[in-house]
Each structure stands twice: as structure tokens, then as C-alpha cells.
């Protein structure tokens, strides 16, 4: 009721009121999801909440943010985008507002800029982001920090074997290129791994020593190769290049221990 009175005092158009109401609904939903996540994090104690729950909350928040974004971009029937409507609105206290007692609330509401803390937070994140992706100039201008970015990309150099190495922070293009290559690299690694696992090892002669060494390294890592001799380096000393057989299955050994039956080699018996 009092709202209605205030609204009448503010001379808001019905369209403005509707926009504000819609915005309020969306913000409520967003804040509820964030609160949920916050309480989950508080109640889960020492460890973060289970990953599936976190993931669910994050995607919900994402969806809500996307929703807000779309809302701002949407145009109403007068071809005015909502952000235009909203930025045209001005907050001002009407007569019944107890300005004396609620001074702090009033200041918060009327404040046009983020508070210094928030401004700093935004600036830090923008600075961090500008190190690896493109930030629109006007954002930086908005912050009044034009001198931020353009860092020297070669502040670390080093001569190594005649090749000049330069440490360069990756920019957005580099990252995109890297991610574009990633599936192929991952696939190559996985196929090498499965090849090493399945043990078809000798049929890749044309792939060369490097490949074989890589396969060996993989096998050693996963403990498939048990013999010292499998390392090419140590093989040179031993002289015999007889491939070490795989360990006998435990069952076969236990069987031998129990019965003394010759299980290996299979052709011993008459």
C-alpha cells in the first residue's frame, strides 16, 4: 500500500514499474542461489561441499546471470532496451523517507559509484584479466586507469643453446590456439597409452626410437615393465637383449607350490 503511494509520488510509468519488478524477481532468484551455495559451504565444514553439488550451484548461478544479461539486452515494444530504461531511472527519496535516521541506507541507495572496496576489487580483476584477454578500452577508461595494460612482453629473456627464449604471457589468441590443439594432443597421448597397454609395441617400427622410448616410459610409469633391462640405457651393459617375460600369474605359482606340478613350460610332461 505504502509502495503504491510512493510509486504514485515517483511518477513512474507502468513500463518502468514492470521492468523494475522483473529485475527484482530475477535478482531475488540469483541471490537465493548464491545464498544456498554459501550456506552449503559454511555447513560442509573443513572440506568443500561435494563436487556435483558445487557444479549444480555454479551452473544455476550461471544460468541466472545469463538470464539477467538477456533481460538487460531485451527490448520492449517501444524499442527501448531495458538497460536504457533502467539507466534513465533516478532514485531519490520521497518525503516520507526518514532521511535523518536511515542516513546510511540512503547513502547506499543514492550512491552512483561502487564503494572504494568494490572499485578496487573490480580493478584488480580487470587487471588480471587484461593480462591474458582483451578488455574493452572503455572499461579501463571507466576505471580511470588507462596506463594499466601494455606490459612489456619480453621482460624475461635467456640464451639457451643459441636459441633465444622469451617468456611471454599468453594472450587470448594464444589460449584459443592452445585449446584448439588440445583435443588432438590429448587423443595422441591416449592412443599412445592404449598402445603401450595393449602391448603391440613391435609393430610400430617406422615410428622410431623416440616413440618406443615414450611407450617404455609410459609402461614403466604404470608398472607394467618390471625389469631393469627394459630401460634402453641399462640394456647396453647386460649384453643380452632377450626380452624379459611377463611375471607368472600368482595363481600358477600357488598351484605349483601346492602340488609341485610342472606348469611351466607347458611342454615338460611326456
Amino acid at each position, binding site marked *: 500500500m505504502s509502495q503504491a503511494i510512493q510509486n504514485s509520488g515517483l511518477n513512474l510509468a507502468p513500463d518502468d514499474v514492470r521492468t523494475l519488478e522483473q529485475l527484482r524477481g530475477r535478482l531475488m532468484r540469483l541471490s537465493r542461489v548464491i545464498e544456498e551455495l554459501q550456506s552449503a559451504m559454511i555447513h560442509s565444514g573443513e572440506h568443500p561441499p561435494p563436487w556435483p553439488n558445487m557444479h549444480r550451484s555454479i551452473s544455476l548461478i550461471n544460468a541466472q546471470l545469463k538470464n539477467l544479461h538477456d533481460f538487460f539486452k531485451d527490448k520492449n515494444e517501444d524499442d527501448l532496451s531495458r538497460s536504457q530504461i533502467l539507466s534513465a531511472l533516478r532514485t531519490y527519496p520521497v518525503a516520507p523517507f526518514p532521511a535523518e535516521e536511515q542516513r546510511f541506507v540512503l547513502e547506499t541507495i543514492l550512491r552512483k559509484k561502487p564503494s572504494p572496496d568494490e572499485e578496487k576489487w573490480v580493478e584488480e580483476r580487470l587487471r588480471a584479466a587484461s593480462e591474458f584477454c582483451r578488455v574493452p578500452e572503455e572499461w579501463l577508461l571507466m576505471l580511470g586507469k588507462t596506463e594499466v595494460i601494455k606490459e612489456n612482453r619480453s621482460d624475461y629473456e635467456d640464451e639457451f643453446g643459441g636459441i633465444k627464449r622469451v617468456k611471454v604471457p599468453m594472450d587470448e589468441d594464444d589460449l584459443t590456439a592452445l585449446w584448439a590443439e588440445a583435443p588432438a594432443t590429448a587423443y595422441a597421448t591416449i592412443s599412445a597409452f592404449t598402445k603401450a597397454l595393449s602391448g603391440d609395441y613391435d609393430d610400430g617400427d617406422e615410428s622410431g626410437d623416440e616413440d618406443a622410448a615414450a611407450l617404455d616410459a609410459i609402461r614403466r610409469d604404470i608398472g607394467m615393465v618390471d625389469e631393469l633391462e627394459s630401460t634402453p640405457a641399462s640394456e647396453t651393459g647386460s649384453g643380452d637383449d632377450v626380452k624379459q617375460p611377463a611375471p607368472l600369474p600368482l595363481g600358477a605359482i600357488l598351484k605349483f607350490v601346492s*602340488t609341485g606340478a610342472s606348469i611351466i613350460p607347458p611342454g615338460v610332461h611326456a
Partner: protein
Amino acid sequence: MYELLLYGQVPQTRHEQVLKVLAGVAAMQPRRIVKRHIVYRPTREPEEPGSNLRRGGSQAVAVKNTARPGGSKPLYFTHLVQRLPESFERENTRSTEDDPAVAKQDAVSESQWSHEWHDLPDPVDRGVLVRQTTNSGAIEGNAHAYAIALGNKFVSEFYIEGNQYVLGNVVIFLHRILHEPGVRSLETEPKIDLPSFSALSPLDPSGAYILEAKIRVQDLNNPALLDTGIQELQGFKKHMKGCVELHVPDRLTLDTRVKYQPRGIAPPNHQVAAR
């Protein structure tokens, strides 16, 4: 006596590491153990399964069912185990002038024998292997003659070398089986003169070791005792997780019963080698 058992395998490359890890876990130095196992089987052939049951025509007398209650009693492989002295491994370090072979044989013949029998492990899945064993030590006398007199015949012999630890009630034995590859299949009776240690080669061509964790329980009828044992063994398994994976092997791989060989087909002769 009953044994609770878990087994794991350790590749040869990791043997040293596991040896050290176990020394740390058990807080003791490894105890070197070299044993000689001689496997015997009964001279008598096992009865055909179900032969004590009536079959064929209805003329069979009903009494026959109960005539021989022990008819299907299984026959088991048994072992003679000889604990070999440490000198068995160190033959090369002795001086030759003192007739090392004689001294060594003296030490070997003095070492004790024991006659061991293991039952087929319990079919109940308790998370560990449970089997009954008997172990009777012999202080003197000809152990081989004793085993033969019991109605056994020689099958083969092999050697076990390894290190033993004791952690609480768990006996940890990291070992591998050695044998004389060519000679073993030719033997018809146990060797009088032991081969040199260096002539033995691992049964497993890759040289991998076996980790056996064992708890001995005297009485299986006391469930609380059994549970305590199982829990301790499972605790050890959990403790070793990531170092050595211990698991319960298929109980039939530890089957010590003599298998029935149908007549008409000659039982495989272990003493004849196809070279």
C-alpha cells in the same frame, strides 16, 4: 591349526623398495629364510568321484551306499620342508682348503625337517583365505624315508628364498620360488647333495616376488578370535594399499588334493621329461 592368508605380487624391480617399506612398517630387520620343499603325493590313486555311489542296474545292494563311508576321502599332496642354513647361500665365500662341500653338507643335514599338510582353503568368503594346516617337525632321522613309509611318492622339489617380518600377529613373508629348471623334472628322489644356490633360478621367469601375509589361528570355532584375526589381516592389507596390493587368490589354485585320473589314460608321469 588354521591359517588366514592374503597374497600379493611384487615385481623384481620393486623388491628392494618393498623390503625397506616392510622393514619400516614392521619395525624390524628382515629375517632371511631359505627353505627346501619336497612335494610328495600318495602312492595310492584317488578313487573315482562318486564311485562309492550306486550306479548301473538296480541289482546293486542298498547297503553299498554306506559300505565305504571313507571311500571318497580325498588324498592330498604333502610337503617335506627343510629350513636351510645361511651357509647354503654363501658357499662361495668359504675358503676352499677346508673342504667346503663337507662342511656345508654337515650344516644342511643338521637342519630340521618338518612335514607339512595344507587343506583346500575354506569355501566361505571371509575376505581372507582360511585353510587348515598341520605341521609336524622332525628332529632327527631320514625324513624322506619317513615320508615314503607313510605311503607317499616323490613328486618334485623346489626352494623358497625370502625375508620374513612379523607385525603384531601377521607373519609377512616376501619370497619367491626357486628351482633347478632342467634337473627338477628328471628327479625321482630328493637330492642328497644340494645344488649350489647360484644354480637355482626363479620359477617365475620375471623374478617377481610374492608377498604372503599370514595369521595363524589355533581354533576356528571361536568366532571372536577369527574375527580379530581377519580384522588384523584386513588392516594390514589396508595399510599396504598403494605399496603392495594384497588380495585373496582363487582358492582352487591352492588345491592340494590329488586329482582323479580316469583309468585307461595313463596319469602324467612327473619323473619323465620330454627333452
